């Protein structure tokens, strides 16, 4: 399946791109993260501490155990600091 991956804040800066499109067979967010980490050092660094990373699936906050069935947009970002 093809999914769009978005990065925000320091994840965007570490990875060097705000978005990319990926062909993947990953079944869960964790599996997707493993796949991304394997893409290179920038990715490995960005995802080195998952406690500092949040994930949204199709614009809803989710978690790393969540399945990716039917998901079209995955976003990774640090804890939010609005307000």
């Amino acid at each position, binding site marked *: 399946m093809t999914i769009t991956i*978005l990065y*925000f*804040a*320091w994840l*965007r800066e570490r990875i060097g791109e705000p978005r990319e499109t990926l062909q993947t067979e990953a079944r869960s967010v964790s599996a997707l993260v493993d796949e991304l980490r394997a893409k290179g050092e920038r990715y490995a660094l960005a995802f080195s501490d998952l406690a500092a990373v949040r994930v*949204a699936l199709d*614009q*809803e*906050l989710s978690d790393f155990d969540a399945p990716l069935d039917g998901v079209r947009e995955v*976003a990774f*970002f*640090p*804890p*939010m*600091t*609005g*307000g």
Partner: protein
Amino acid sequence: MDIRVQAEPFDYGTECNAFTASAPGAGAVVSFCGIVRDAGGQLARMEIEHYPGMTERALNDIATQAGERWDLTEVLIIHRHGPLAPGETIMMVATASRHRAEAFAAAEFLMDYLKSRAPFWKKEITATGEAWVEAAERDETALKRW
């Protein structure tokens, strides 16, 4: 329910008055304004990044939840993104209710959720460098009371 995500400045006082006028029957209006604070006198500017699409959904969801929990006659959220100078308004919320306790509770609820559950990220730029603002432990803790 009036929710705006915008780069443009807004005038807090003007919005407070317009909000109050839009909420007839309310006896209590609570408003909150967040301002770019220059703690050390070093801040050149703040930059706020957000996640277009998800931001609007999250703010709508938070405001809808507030409307379900409390007897509100009106709710307003304005949140800016992009570059902001020290002293500029970042965002505001306002709640109107018949009674003050509900207006206060709803405004605090909106702020607590907005701080940690709406996809905004702040970066502070000084003469010597830049740094992403880290989420405060107390902001996550604040959510537990609701």
